[in-house]
């Protein structure tokens, strides 16, 4: 089997350290966990992709309400199927790491919350977001009236140009006033 350090070349390791917010330990651990997810035929291939349903078996993502969105946002596959290469996986861990900046975290949070991928958060996105966070079954959902009230409160608070949607800079502005965001937006292997 060999040690994981020997499978990651020293140059690649140095490059990963420079381009992500992860430390050497975190990168090696990520490599170990990622190779466990790979199909045994692909174990030597540095550009191998892991399908989304295998990624979602990771205990850190299994119960996360945004797990599918996270995979879609960080995936670079052309088929948009949410599969991740090792570099996508490192991107994911880097954005969710302790040392990532507020800008990176808020940028990716915006993309995760943007369920229809159109670059803005409109009422449909906001409704899906609230349902994701409060429960999707019939008895745990908010009533239609409460939902409408909540969405209008959200838009009143953050929609500065009053176009009915929240764009990236409005989102980043409102998130920067939220003191718990940086410490909650964290996933550590």
């Amino acid at each position, binding site marked *: 089997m060999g040690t994981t350090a020997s499978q990651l070349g020293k140059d690649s390791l140095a490059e990963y350290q420079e381009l992500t917010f992860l*430390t050497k330990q975190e990168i090696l651990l990520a490599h170990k966990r990622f190779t466990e997810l790979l199909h045994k035929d692909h174990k030597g291939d540095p550009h191998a992709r892991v399908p989304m349903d295998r990624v979602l078996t990771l*205990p850190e993502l299994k119960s996360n*309400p945004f797990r599918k969105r996270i995979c879609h946002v960080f995936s670079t596959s052309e088929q948009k199927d949410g599969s991740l290469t090792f570099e996508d996986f490192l991107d994911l861990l880097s954005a969710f790491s302790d040392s990532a*900046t507020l800008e990176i975290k808020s940028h990716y949070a915006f993309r995760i919350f943007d369920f229809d991928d159109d670059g803005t958060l409109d009422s449909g996105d906001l409704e899906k977001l609230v349902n994701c966070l409060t429960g999707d079954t019939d008895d745990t959902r908010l009533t239609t009236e409460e939902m409408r009230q909540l969405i209008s*409160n959200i838009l009143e608070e953050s929609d500065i140009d009053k176009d009915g949607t929240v764009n990236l800079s409005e989102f980043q502005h409102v998130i*920067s*006033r939220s003191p718990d965001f940086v*410490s909650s937006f964290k996933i550590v292997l």
Partner: protein
Amino acid sequence: MVFVTCKDTVTGRACCVVLCTTEEQNLVKELVGLSTRDRIRAIRGLSMSFKEKKHIRLVLSHYVSLIIKQYNTNNQVLIQWSCFKLFSQSFRRCGYSIKSARQTLKLWQSIMKEIGGRFGTSVLSYFVFLKWLLMFNIFSFLVNFGFITIPLLVYDPSPNIPPNVSFTGLEMLTGAGYFTYTIMYYGGYSNETLVGLVKYDMKLAYFFTIAVYMVLCGIALIFSMASSFKKNYVLADPTSNSAWQLLSSWDFSITNERAVRQRKNNLRVQIQESLSDKAQRQLLTLSEKLKHLGVYLGFWLLSTSLVVGCGVSIYYLYAANWSLLQEAETLLVPFVVSLMNLVVPLLYSLFNKFEHYSSHRRQIYALVVRNILLKMSILAVLCYYWMNVVAKKFSCWESVVGQALYRLVIVDFLFLMLGSFFGEFLSNVIGTRLIPRLGVPEFDVARNVLELIYAQSLAWIGIYFSPLLPAIQILKLFILFYLKKVSLTQNCQPPRRTARAAQMQTIFIALLFFPFFVGSLSIVAYTAWRLTPSEQCGPFRGLNSTFSVVGVWMDDLHEIPGSQWVIWIYENIIKSEIFYFLMTLIIIDTYIAIENKPFMNCG
């Protein structure tokens, strides 16, 4: 499309790099002007996929080397520049390895992940804080043991204990008796210059070890405070029920299925509460406001008088203390102190229920301030008694103070265990069986962290009087971790409200530093500066004050050639007031520099 051709300096081959879009060109132009460190930080902060970042980095490195070559046709300059680049690169790699070395201490990592996954970040912050304090104590123990105790043990392995004293089990609790003559306390250390492989001056070793440790602690605390402040302090919105704050504070590190479901329920309840609050906003009438104000003032007066009462009673208990012949009686004062530390905060929590606060945050702040006042005044009274009465009454007074601190630490530990039992286990039993309305208790992070801070300040004060006290503290923190973990998982539920974990963390570090560390440092400094060391025991016997060892050393150094620079430093820097002024300026400057690190906004 723009093509940039350059020649590879090593192989001489021409390589072609393509800049595809104008956005990328603009980005590269912005990044080229930065220093290497800022450039790396900027690229890392780009919100692009890994492949794109690699591409930008490659383009930039070719672009930069092209520019350098255009402006530096002189080979000498090019070689110097390459050397400088290599040096700064190895410096950076060193920085990375330091960062990852800090993570190798894998103590408790899996347990903390389990706790974070089930209870969330705010409860986890208590355990992270505990682990951080443990590091301080491990470092302190290693330093003290290595520089002070080991030389003494090597030179004189058997302690000189008078013949009629033998080891009974009670010493573990009281710290007196057999332990008084051992290396546990100040009195067990000699003041000689040990001659072995090298000449080792015990006085200087004792003084400098403790001084350097305190200074390093202070620096570490200032840096943690600065970086935590920068990361977490945000001008918080006054409307704490804002919808975005509720939605954006979803804790991504929770991995337990049940905990996730509970969080979703709590969030739904909070959202519904905030919606109904907005619908019917209560306006208080003037008489109601006056009534609330009266209630606040009344309870503040009550808390302050409780604090004053505690302080006075401890002083009189100590002063009226009976001869210390019977060792068991000496446990009375620590017992009373710890009892007050246990009962009075519970009383404060009770007061909280009768007061009406406009926000949850103000409630926590009021509780924290009252608890701090209590603990600080208890410590102040004890230190006042030790410095003014004990120092004049006993012959080997530092050991007496060391023993008193040992007893306080041990009894405090026993009471923490009791507090866990009463605080969490009984609350759970009451909440589930007796009064179901109360429900399962939540883990009170603020109260527990304050208890840790108090315990740590006892250890800091005690380092001067009992160099091996950190060993006891290490054991205490170690056991406490497992105790709290078991108590948490068996008795508590995850917190219902998102309690501003990040800001509380900053506040706790600031509290650790500001009243408690600075207070402990001032007590130790006052002892070293003003109080006369005892005549018969310890490393500083016979001197006017502890600090005069440095003066004596300076006098000795006059005879040794080649050490003029040390004397110069002492005369012109340490003794002058300008030095301290400059130090304060440097500290403030570093603080501001950490806060204002340049940030590039891309994309």
